[in-house]
């Protein structure tokens, strides 16, 4: 038994044990027990993943465990990457949950389901047969749904979010089921090895159908436009430590599915598959960050940012597929390595951001950026954590996302001369989309951090905020360490990721060469040293500040009142709010966003020339949702109304329908045979 197997075994054992503990132990220590169990489970999963990435793979078949198909488990290097990400996120979320759950979330059900959700997520990437994969996938969906609904008695929006999530995740499951079953129908068995074998001689068209249908299913889990509608609803409404697991770990498994089916099971494919992935990814990235930039709800903003980042990852995956189909496997490996690195980086900074947002919610009871502000003095640790996360998410050096987006841009730019007209058009457009996304991300996170944490408090709740308990700070600290390490020393993970990506696209050698603290790209000119860059930046900033100080001390300094245009002391009402900060951007993207603005002017009774009050309301509805989902929902409800005529309320009538239907089918069988 190697260490990968041991780690996975421990994770699978500890998770259910924590769930049992959640049911048995008294409420006082329940959150602690479950949090520790979940963290242990995640740590074991991460260890197993690290061993898998470094080459210790294993397979296991348990034919008796699941009727008809049996359970098959294989840990290979690709699943190892996702094991590490999921495990790492679970460690931070588990420890954070110890303090966060005291906030009225330490009921038996929620606490018992939490570790089970982690185990289900750990099992999805190691499943090695269609049956096992679908069971784990469904368990993951069900457990996460239960957790999303944890606070449904407190807020009615939770139930709405839960319904959206339940419907969309199950439609996604149906799509994946159809795709994999069609593929398995052409194979000798339902194990992934048999599917790989069968994919070599599939009838024409079948592979296309399988890929597109599974792309729909996995894309809906990854929150890809236009299947993202559940994500900005469910992720904010879930308890924050659950949002972390969903937003930093669960969505990645959608990407895993696309990579596993597209590259591994189907063995690559025609160029248009990957062009489709690339286009969807680019659209999601731009649309997601635009919506995030407009959002005034902190957790909703982070949810849309997840859509954006998954879009960037899919741009990388799509580019990798296009290069691979053109035969340039080294460049394909580079694009896929960039995508995988972005998965890891996104997990790190999104964990940090969601945990910090949860800490704010815990302290103030509000997610509305317009009602926050001034948290810096009262919650210094949370502010530092969110600031670090915002920097990491902004794709600016020395941020975490910068490294992976730089790699992605390198792959896209160097792919230009690769081959064909399609590539020549797609690559510059993709570069533009990634660059626009990066720019908007900076604006978004400046808004989230500046409006939410700096300046003066804009509500009584923000004024009375106090710092979160130690366990929550430890959770944030772990995520912060992860983000910093990934930002400064991506050279620690890149060699492993490079070889995983190279193996996945069928390339012989790794696309990146690590040289001390510098990353060099193989076959194309390009190198980056994040650590040196950070050191240089810090040195430059210190130099500038020092020079300014020296210059400034020549003149006498005096304290003076801040200039307030003579309008009396500055108040919190004069600050930028999230809405006002986003207004210029909203004007620029007016045609895309189509915001709804209401201005109500109330005049005084005496004269219509005098204004008593002005009320301004702005809403940015999700346009894709309105155009695409509303007609479908209308159709379904019209259908439902027709169906109600059949349902009179008599139980016997309903049973009669069933009985006569069975008899009719049997009669038809008996007559026509």
């Amino acid at each position, binding site marked *: 038994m190697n260490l990968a197997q041991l780690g996975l075994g421990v994770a699978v054992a500890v998770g259910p044990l924590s769930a049992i503990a959640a049911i048995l132990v008294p409420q006082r220590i329940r959150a602690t027990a479950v949090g520790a169990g979940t963290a242990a489970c995640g740590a074991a999963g991460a260890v197993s993943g690290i061993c898998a990435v470094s080459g210790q793979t294993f397979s296991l078949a348990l034919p008796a465990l699941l*009727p008809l198909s049996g359970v098959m488990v294989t840990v290979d290097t690709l699943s190892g990457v996702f094991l590490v990400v999921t495990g790492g996120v679970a460690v931070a979320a588990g420890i954070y949950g110890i303090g966060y759950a005291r906030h009225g979330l330490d009921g038996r059900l929620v606490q018992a389901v939490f570790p089970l959700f982690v185990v289900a997520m750990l099992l999805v990437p190691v499943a090695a047969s269609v049956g096992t994969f679908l069971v784990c996938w469904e368990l993951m969906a069900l457990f996460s749904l239960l957790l999303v609904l944890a606070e449904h008695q407190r807020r009615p929006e939770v139930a709405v979010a839960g319904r959206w999530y339940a419907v969309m995740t199950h439609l996604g499951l149906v799509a994946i089921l159809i795709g994999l079953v069609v593929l398995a129908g052409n194979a000798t068995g339902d194990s992934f090895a048999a599917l790989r074998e069968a994919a070599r001689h599939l009838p024409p068209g079948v592979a296309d159908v399988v890929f597109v249908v599974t792309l729909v299913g996995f894309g809906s889990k990854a929150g890809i436009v236009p299947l993202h509608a559940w994500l900005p609803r469910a992720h904010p409404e879930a308890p924050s430590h659950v949002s972390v697991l969903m937003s930093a770990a669960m969505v990645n498994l959608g990407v895993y599915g696309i990579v596993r089916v597209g590259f591994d099971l189907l063995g690559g494919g025609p160029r248009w598959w990957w062009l489709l992935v690339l286009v969807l990814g680019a659209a999601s990235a731009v649309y997601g960050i635009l919506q995030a930039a407009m959002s005034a709800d902190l957790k909703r903003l982070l949810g849309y940012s997840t859509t954006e980042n998954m879009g960037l990852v899919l741009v990388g995956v799509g580019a990798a597929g296009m290069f691979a189909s053109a035969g340039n496997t080294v460049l394909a490996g580079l694009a896929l390595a960039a995508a995988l690195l972005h998965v890891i980086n996104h997990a790190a900074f999104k964990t940090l951001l969601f945990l910090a947002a949860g800490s704010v919610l815990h302290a103030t009871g509000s997610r509305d950026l317009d009602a926050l502000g001034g948290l810096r003095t009262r919650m210094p640790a949370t502010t530092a954590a969110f600031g670090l996360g915002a920097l990491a998410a902004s794709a600016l050096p020395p941020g975490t996302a910068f490294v992976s987006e730089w790699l992605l841009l390198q792959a896209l730019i160097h792919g230009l001369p690769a081959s064909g007209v399609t590539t020549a058009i797609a690559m510059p457009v993709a570069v533009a989309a990634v660059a626009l996304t990066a720019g908007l991300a900076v604006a978004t996170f400046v808004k989230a951090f500046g409006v939410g944490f700096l300046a003066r408090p804009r509500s009584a709740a923000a004024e009375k905020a106090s710092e979160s308990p130690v366990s929550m700070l430890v959770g944030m600290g772990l995520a912060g360490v992860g983000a910093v390490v990934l930002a400064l020393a991506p050279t620690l993970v890149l060699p492993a990721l490079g070889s995983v990506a190279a193996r996945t696209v069928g390339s012989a050698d790794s696309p990146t060469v690590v040289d001390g603290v510098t990353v060099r790209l193989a076959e194309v000119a390009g190198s980056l040293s994040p650590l040196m860059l950070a050191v240089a930046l810090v040195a430059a900033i210190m130099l500038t500040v020092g020079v300014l100080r020296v210059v400034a001390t020549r003149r006498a300094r005096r304290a003076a009142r801040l200039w307030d245009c003579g309008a009396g002391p500055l108040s919190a009402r004069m600050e930028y709010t999230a809405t006002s900060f986003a207004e210029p951007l909203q004007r620029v993207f007016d045609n895309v966003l189509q915001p709804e603005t209401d201005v109500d002017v109330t005049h005084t009774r005496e004269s219509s020339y005098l204004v008593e009050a002005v009320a301004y309301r702005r809403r940015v509805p999700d346009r894709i949702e309105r155009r695409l989902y509303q007609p479908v929902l209308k159709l379904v409800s019209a259908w439902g109304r027709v169906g109600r005529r059949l349902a*009179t*309320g008599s*139980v*016997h009538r309903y049973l*009669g329908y069933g*009985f006569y239907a069975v008899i009719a089918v*049997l009669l038809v069988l*008996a007559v026509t045979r």
Partner: protein
Amino acid sequence: MSDTTYVQLLDLACGGLLLTAVLVLWRRELVVIIGVFAAQGLALAALVEVLAVHEGSAELGGVAVGILVLRAGVLPWLLRRALAQAGPARRETRPLVNVAASLLAAALLTLLAYAVSQPLVTLAPSPATHAIPVGVTVFLIGFFVLFSRRRALSQLVGFLLMDNGITAVGFLTTAGVGLIVELGVSLDVLLAVLVLRILTTRMRETFGDTDLDELRELHD
């Protein structure tokens, strides 16, 4: 056990199954119906036991014991308890379809079952597969009971009859449903009965009766 004895015992058990199913349709008193249902559980257990002895499979023998305990013991006991709580209104008064018509329907359903199970029988002719139509008939009669009876308790019996039919077909076709499958199904049935019992009790507390036609008002 010689082949002749095996076939005779198998036919006897299947005859018991069919007869008890028809008796459920014929009798109106709930107490009697529950007794008949218990007898059917016994017949089903005997059927599985005969198959087990014929194949010399200890696992199947264990399953037979399980079936005996659940279907001839636990389930009738639960039903009787529900009936005892129901009070004096013990007689099944007005079935939606009267007894004569019900028996006629049972005959037609039997014919249909024989017609549709022919392909299954010809697939692998053996004494066991020749008895498949009996299982299908029990299933169809159970469904008929489910939709033609008013009282919640007799509908419950219809549901259990359907399940007996499915189990019988399962054992007759494969001669060995996996132990896990049978265990799962049995647990499901037990759970369904418990839920329905609670539902019946609640209905009686709310409406003072378990006539399902009263539920029409709940229609959305």
